[in-house]
């Protein structure tokens, strides 16, 4: 029984119900969304079970026929899809539950759940699509929902601007993606993922197609140089940041690369690009995160960094390593964002310099926050350790020493900034007057459940890989190195932020510090190099349009008006004038017709 294609329909139904009847449903709209999500999760489980019994991909019918090649409404069911389905629906459920508490007094409560449901529908459709075109449709769908939810509080100019920035930035990547798809079709005549294993075509063209497809992934997964939208996307509700901008949608780029992995692995240059971009993003974002003071932005940079790490993992040839990290990251990053949301909910600020000592006031949030941090920092035996280790191992085994060092450095920085975050937020003493309190149960239960997974999800992947690890002698060494690096990062943060030992005075590295605080001036560079000239061009076009195009149109209108003004004089309004003209015409007509 093929039931996979029903999965996206449940959230879509919830979207339709909420968008049309949301005002009447009020709080019940949340239950509609949650019910739809639970059903989708159950169906995903059924698909998972069915897959073990030998279910595969199937088609729902032909969509188009191009040059004799048919494009199907196809559904792909393989371990990657099932993993994504389970992550989206499972984490989605808990984030929806969390949102009841987080959004409880928002005037657009039902609208929020409608958007989230639409997002989940699109995301599930995205992972089920078996060809590029179908995937692109859902890809744009999640982009739309991302935009709507980032700009959810559109009364705030910053949120509206952030939504626009996210939409436009990802759109740049999407354009490349579309061109890539078309080049691929041009080169080998297929849109279907299943055909990618056996595509043949001009080497350079396929490499180009792969790199362009990766551009789409760069936009969606916020990789350098298209990463600028993700930190600003934190203007949206925190639950949205957790679901869309940490766990699922931004992982779509990684998913895309994993999905097209046969194409990438056949072309080393494309694969190399993925790895290098991933490495740059990972290191760059991690360094920025070490100095940022906004709790959500630290996590956002961390997300960029971790996504970069996944890309790096894929780029060095580790398909399972990258996707495994995707899964574990989804759990602990969603957890961390929800914790951050809980903290923000409690203290009403996002500045970590103003927080401190919150562990005693918010025990559940604090404890789960710590678990998430340890998982992200890669401390054994938490989830992040296993997946990160997998990436390091793959990089080492496939002889990419530079990328290995980059990944190692990133994990060091990750441990450092995450430790800094929790030390500043949870430990020490309060640095301002904050009336913190524990969040309601709807918010803490998802935290607890997700923390369990953040702690133990790593074991799902670990035992399977153990067989492989025995084969490589260096694996235990790398595990040890990774652990030491993580602990060093934690320890350094402890010295700096708990003990307050000044190792290096900030003034001596103020240049570097400024560079990091200003995010390498990338936004400023974009503003100067791209946005300003673009706006100037727009202004020029506007003037051209207003003066010349409109001028021409207005001139036409004036000429017409002038002549009609002349003609208007014939309309005297006197019936006898009209009658006279009528008779005169009759006479002239008679003369002409009868040739008198």
């Amino acid at each position, binding site marked *: 029984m093929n039931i996979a294609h029903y999965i996206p329909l449940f959230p879509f139904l919830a979207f339709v119900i909420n968008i049309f009847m949301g005002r009447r449903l009020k709080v019940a709209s949340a239950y509609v969304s949650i019910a739809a999500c639970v059903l989708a999760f159950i169906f995903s489980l059924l698909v998972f079970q069915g897959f073990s019994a030998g279910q595969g991909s199937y088609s729902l019918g032909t969509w188009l026929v191009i040059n004799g090649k048919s494009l199907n409404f196809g559904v792909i069911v393989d371990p990657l899809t099932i993993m994504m389905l389970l992550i989206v629906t499972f984490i989605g459920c808990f984030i929806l539950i969390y949102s009841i508490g987080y959004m409880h007094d928002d005037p657009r409560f039902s609208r929020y759940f409608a958007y989230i449901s639409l997002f989940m529908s699109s995301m599930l459709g995205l992972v089920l699509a078996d060809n590029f075109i179908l995937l692109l449709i859902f890809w744009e769908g999640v982009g739309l929902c991302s935009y709507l939810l980032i700009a959810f509080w559109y009364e705030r100019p910053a949120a509206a601007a952030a939504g626009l920035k996210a939409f436009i930035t990802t759109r740049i990547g999407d354009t490349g993606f579309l061109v890539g798809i078309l080049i691929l079709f041009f080169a080998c005549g297929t849109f279907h993922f299943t055909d990618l294993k056996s595509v043949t075509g001009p080497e350079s063209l396929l490499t180009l197609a792969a790199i362009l497809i990766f551009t789409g992934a760069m936009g969606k997964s916020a990789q350098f140089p298209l990463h600028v939208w993700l930190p600003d996307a934190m203007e949206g509700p925190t639950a949205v940041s957790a679901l869309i901008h940490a766990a699922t949608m931004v992982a779509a780029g990684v998913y895309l690369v994993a999905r097209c992995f046969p194409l990438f692995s056949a072309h080393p240059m494309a694969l190399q690009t993925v790895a290098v971009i991933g490495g740059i993003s990972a290191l760059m974002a991690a360094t920025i995160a070490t100095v940022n003071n906004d709790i959500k932005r630290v996590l956002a940079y961390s997300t960029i960094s971790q996504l970069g790490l996944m890309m790096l993992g894929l780029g060095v040839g580790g398909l399972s390593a990258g996707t495994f990290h995707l899964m574990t990251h989804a759990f602990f990053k969603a957890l961390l964002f929800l914790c951050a949301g809980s903290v923000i909910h409690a203290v009403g600020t996002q500045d970590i310099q103003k927080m401190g000592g919150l562990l005693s006031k918010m025990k559940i949030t604090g404890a789960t926050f710590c678990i998430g941090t340890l998982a992200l920092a890669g401390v054994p035996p938490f989830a992040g350790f296993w997946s990160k280790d997998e990436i390091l191992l793959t990089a080492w085994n496939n002889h990419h020493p530079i990328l290995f060092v980059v990944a190692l450095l990133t994990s060091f920085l990750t441990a450092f900034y995450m430790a800094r975050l929790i030390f500043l937020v949870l430990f020490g003493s309060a640095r301002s007057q904050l009336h913190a309190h524990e969040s309601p149960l709807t918010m803490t239960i998802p935290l607890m459940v997700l923390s369990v997974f953040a702690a133990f999800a790593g074991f799902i992947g670990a035992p399977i890989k153990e067989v492989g690890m025995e084969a490589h002698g260096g694996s235990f060494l790398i595990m040890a190195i990774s652990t030491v690096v993580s602990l060093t990062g934690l320890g350094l943060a402890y010295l700096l932020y708990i003990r307050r030992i000044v190792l290096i005075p900030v003034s001596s590295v103020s240049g570097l510090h400024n560079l990091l605080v200003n995010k390498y001036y990338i936004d400023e560079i974009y503003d100067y190099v791209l946005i300003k000239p673009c706006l100037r061009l727009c202004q020029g076009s506007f003037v051209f349009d207003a003066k010349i195009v409109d001028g021409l149109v207005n001139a036409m209108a004036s000429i017409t008006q002038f002549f009609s003004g002349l003609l208007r004089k014939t309309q005297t309004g006197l019936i*006898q004038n009209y009658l006279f003209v009528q008779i005169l015409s009759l*006479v002239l007509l008679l*003369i002409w017709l*009868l040739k008198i």
Partner: protein
Amino acid sequence: MGDFVFYFIALCTCVFSVLAVTQRDIFHCALWLALTLMSISGVYFYLDAAFLGVVQILVYVGGIITLFIFAIKLTAHMNDTSIRQTSKQWVISVFVTLLLLLVLFKVFARTSWAEIILKTDSTSINQIGLSLMTHYALPFEFMSVILLAAMVGAIVIGKEKK
């Protein structure tokens, strides 16, 4: 003798009709119109259409002209002879009308009337009655509806508004 009667009636008709459209006083116009219509009924009599001639006098002179006179009297102060009664375009209208007349006459002159086989058997009142009740029954009924509508409409429009 018969020819003379026709010429006389035709002359009367022409003169009266010209007077009916050119007189300054609109009341005189109505009276000249009455005379024109009576002359035309004379034409009908001459053409052996006695019934039509009678109807012409009864309906036109007895009915419509009376209505005209009522209307003229009700709008009394419009009929002062010191007010200009012809529009500014009268000179050119004379020209165009004459041109039209000329064109029509030329058309008639060009027509070969000789080809028409003349029959001079007259239509009796009896025949008209039969036609109205048989072959033309439907237009006849429509006519009554139109007259009724005109009457109702006249009453509705003519009613003083409160």
